[in-house]
């Protein structure tokens, strides 16, 4: 190290070498790098913890059976390890959740950012935040004890546990997330763009849909992706309201078992470490992880492709 004399050299001219301020900056950069490093390490650790038992699983059960057959009965005799019913169950609840939370969330965001008066916005936003804060176990019981009986009263013969009720309530859970993140993205669109389009005789709907939403699209898609990932990963609500019956059915009134419901349901039971049942949990977990990862990669591509950068 050099330059203990920060301000001037013998000649009286300022020196260009690093000063103590620069050293402080380095310490900060170091801390930040450490933080980033820890999160990378944790992620790598999780992946390894998933991978090792999964590899052992696939040594016993061929991937062809796992991904290619449609009977899921790992705890029965003889066991069957076809994961398709679980994937279908997950897709089914996720589909209903998305049909609720994506359009309603975006609609809410457009309303809040482009139409609502400040007073209305200040009332609606806290209510949404309360909705986001309801414990999922409460929502799960709500789906099971209120929504499903209501559907039956209305004359729709759904099963007691069904994909539809669980999915809808997951959608309700995620609606505030989509609304809030999309609204943030839309509020960040400069006022000048709105004025420019109003100045051309556009109406509010045209300004919202043709200028503001396109300019905010990367934030909106990010909120959608987060919602889809969380719908796929949601556990408590599906465990309580969608059931534990692994079958390949997209019919909304049917009971289904999702990947998460299997993991949570089996993991909380009496499964000996190292047994094939135990490894099954990790194999399903890895599948879930890969699906979410692919989804994220696709969406990052989408965002890059459609982004309208303002400034």
């Amino acid at each position, binding site marked *: 190290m050099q330059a203990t004399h920060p301000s001037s050299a013998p000649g009286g001219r300022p020196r260009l070498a690093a000063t103590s301020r620069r050293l402080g900056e380095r310490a900060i950069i170091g801390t930040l790098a450490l933080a980033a490093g820890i999160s990378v390490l944790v992620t790598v650790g999780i992946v390894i913890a998933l991978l090792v038992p999964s590899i052992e699983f696939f040594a016993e059960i061929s991937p062809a059976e796992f991904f290619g057959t449609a009977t899921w009965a790992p705890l029965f005799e003889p066991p069957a390890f076809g994961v398709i019913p679980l994937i279908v169950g997950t897709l089914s609840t996720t589909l209903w959740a998305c049909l609720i939370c994506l359009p309603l969330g975006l609609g809410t965001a457009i309303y809040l950012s482009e139409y609502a*008066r*400040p007073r209305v916005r200040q009332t609606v936003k806290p209510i949404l935040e309360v909705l986001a804060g309801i414990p999922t176990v409460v929502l799960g019981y709500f789906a099971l004890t209120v929504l499903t009986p209501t559907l039956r009263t209305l004359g729709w013969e759904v099963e007691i546990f069904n994909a539809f009720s669980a999915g809808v309530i997951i959608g309700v859970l995620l609606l505030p997330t989509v609304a809030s993140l999309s609204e943030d993205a839309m509020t960040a669109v*400069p006022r*000048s*763009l*709105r*004025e*420019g*389009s*109003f*100045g*051309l*005789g*556009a*109406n509010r709907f*045209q300004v919202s849909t*043709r*200028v503001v939403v*396109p*300019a905010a699209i990367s934030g909106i898609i990010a909120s959608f992706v987060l919602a889809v990932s969380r719908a796929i990963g949601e556990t408590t609500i599906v465990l309580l309201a969608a059931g534990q019956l692994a079958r390949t059915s997209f019919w909304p009134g049917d009971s289904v078992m999702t990947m998460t419901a299997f993991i949570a349901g089996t993991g909380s039971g009496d499964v000996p470490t190292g047994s094939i049942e135990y490894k099954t949990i990790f194999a399903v977990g890895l599948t879930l992880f890969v699906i979410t990862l692919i989804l994220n990669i696709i969406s990052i591509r989408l965002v890059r492709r459609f982004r*309208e*950068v*303002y*400034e």
Partner: protein
Amino acid sequence: MDPTPSTAADSTAMESSRDRTPLGALGVAERTQADATPVEERDVVFDCQQVGVRYSGTRALRDVDLKIHSNAVTALIGPSGCGKSTFLRCLNRMNDLIPGAAVDGQIFYHGEELYQPQVDAIEVRKRIGMVFQKPNPFPKSIYDNIAFGPRVLGMKKDLDERIEQTLRRAALWDEVKDRLKEGALGLSGGQQQRLCIARALAVEPDVILMDEPCSALDPISTSAIEDLMLSLTNDYTVVIVTHNMQQAARVADMTAFFSVDQGETGTRCGVLIEVDRTERIFTNPAHERTEAYVTGRFG
């Protein structure tokens, strides 16, 4: 429909007879002007009577009486904060978009009061276009920027042709004709501002309002836009806010000088001091405050 906008070079065609549907109840007079008609004798496009604006109850502007004539450039000058932008935004009901802004007085646009209840602000803005201080192209392609207005107004016929003519009119065609599908934000500041002017022209307005359109630009771009403004008066009425007095002197037929009145309680409120032909405002103003401002003695 409208005659096709003439190119900048072909500026002898003075008249432009427009067949416009009325905003609400009243019809809009047809415009036929001879080049020689003195500005004050041309049709009155805006007749403003006792116009004032309050923002959330605080008065920012009061008692503006001003006539704006057709096929001329009218400049609004005055110190910063005197309500020039505020006034300009009254003319196309842009202040409607600001929560808490309230306009009083009356503005007759071709004889029709702009703030009467049955007038639709969107209809107003179709006819009275606006160009802003900072260029604000949409984050879309050059083509889509110009096409935006025609598309939202349902003027979808011959869109390509309309876009070419508009860009030629704004003296931008040669610079962008090979990159119409590229992003508008890749243009220079001056090109962006001309694009914004072209965007406003694409919907065939009657009036163009410009709020300090050159304040963010270099002298060469400024000069290009000034030339453009002058050529626009063949077909349009132009109202421009500028803090640059040389610019007003160069482009404006009429100049309105605004200033700030200090109330006894320390409240500041914008007022119109006088409006006259530009050369009189700069050489022989009627009012002392104008003289002090244009000669640079403004305190």
